């Protein structure tokens, strides 16, 4: 995808997130979904950045299908993870034993 930085993989053209191929440092400037953004935090390989702006309740699309729903406003370029999306299937449990997004 030429609208997205080479350090990110877009798995399907319909996706609202892109996946990091490598660690990307905080403050890095990159293009994603045609927008220039500055990363507010470091991300490591396999983590997701928003390719499209999402509102609470919007489906998060990866592999061209929904992998859950946004739980907060997500701006293009934001890290998408437990803090701003949730499973539509079962809550995701983390090491603390708490459901991260019940």
């Amino acid at each position, binding site marked *: 995808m030429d609208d997205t930085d080479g350090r990110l993989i877009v798995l399907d053209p319909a996706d609202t997130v892109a996946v990091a191929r490598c660690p990307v440092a905080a403050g890095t400037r990159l293009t994603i979904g045609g927008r220039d953004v500055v990363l507010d935090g470091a991300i490591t*390989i396999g983590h997701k950045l928003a390719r499209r702006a999402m509102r609470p309740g919007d489906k998060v699309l990866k*592999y061209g299908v929904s992998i859950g729903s946004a739980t907060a406003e997500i701006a293009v370029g934001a890290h998408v993870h437990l803090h701003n999306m949730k499973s539509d299937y079962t809550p995701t449990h983390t090491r603390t034993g708490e459901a991260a997004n019940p």
Partner: protein
Amino acid sequence: MSFLGYPRADGRKGIRNVVAVAYLVECAHHVAREIVLPHRDRAHVIGFPGCYPNAYAQRMMERLCTHPNVGAVLLVSLGCESFNRQALERAVRDSGRPVETVVIQQAGGTRSAIAAGRAFVAREAAALDRAPTAEMTLADLVVGTVCGGSDGTSGISGNPAAGRAFDRLVAAGATCIFEETGELIGCEEVMAARAATPDLAGALRASVEKAARYYAELGYGSFAAGNADGGLTTIEEKSMGAYAKSGASPISGLIKPGDIPPRGGLYLMDVVPDGPVRFGFPNISDNAEIVEMMASGAHLTLFVTGRGSVVGSAISPVIKIAANPEMYDRLHEDMDVNAGRIITGAAGLDEVGDEIFDAVAAVAAGQQTKSEDLGHTEFILTYKSFEPIGPACLPA
């Protein structure tokens, strides 16, 4: 694209022509291994270790001994195990293959049984060198896919690239099989939407629900904390990473181990036993999955690995696809395809998918995989129990 294979009486064709030496209880394993030693390039050991009877194991052994890559079969029995060796021998003979049974207790012990077995293997291996060949195309091929030793890279490089290869194979008329319903929890609806008929969609959903119940009973969760560290947020996201191996073709049917797909297309294999949890984990290691693919006719298996599995298989070649570029650098002598190039940005998904497709064609035409060349012939078969599939599973 055509290549030469080995025609069998049932109409299928093999891409290899090996002598299967099958032990029918662990007590006969040593003798089987010794029989194969001088013929390791032509004969492979397979077998079932249990002494108690099991309908699944009996059926699996019949399917494996009449696999298209097998040209002749030697059964090695201790003599007092409960495996029905007569029924297995009859099934092999009815398939048109040379078959002989060595019963260790009747042959006069270990040394005599090994000598008798080696004489059969030497004779049949020489006969296989003169075996007739017939033209084969990709439409004759059955290809399985499994993943093992997965890490965060498998779902974004190796698995989707294998899915691209599956799409091209299905388009060419091949039969492709994916599996591990326990790793599909959360993508039932996405998968059901690809089913050829509404009844099949229901059967696909039910197979994943069965897997979820089975794993819950074992107390074995699917989403581990380490998954979130690796960037995975939800169970459906993790499952989609495994599911990506299946590509995007319509799903033609749902089979269980040993069911042979009736025609080309994409099939899901339900590997989770039916009924109450009885014999433990559905598949105790990656080779148990590869064996089930072979029992359903897989000529070769694609194996996507992130952490770096080194296994191959008896009977059917395994094409190993490295998902992680760092692992590829360390273990390249064991890896056939470097899908890690998707991670480094050196190649796209389509490019690696094409490379996997080309590797399938080359291996089918006789090129040795890394694990074949290294002499890997792993095999494992354990106890399981299945009900037959229902009519909704294979729509006309």
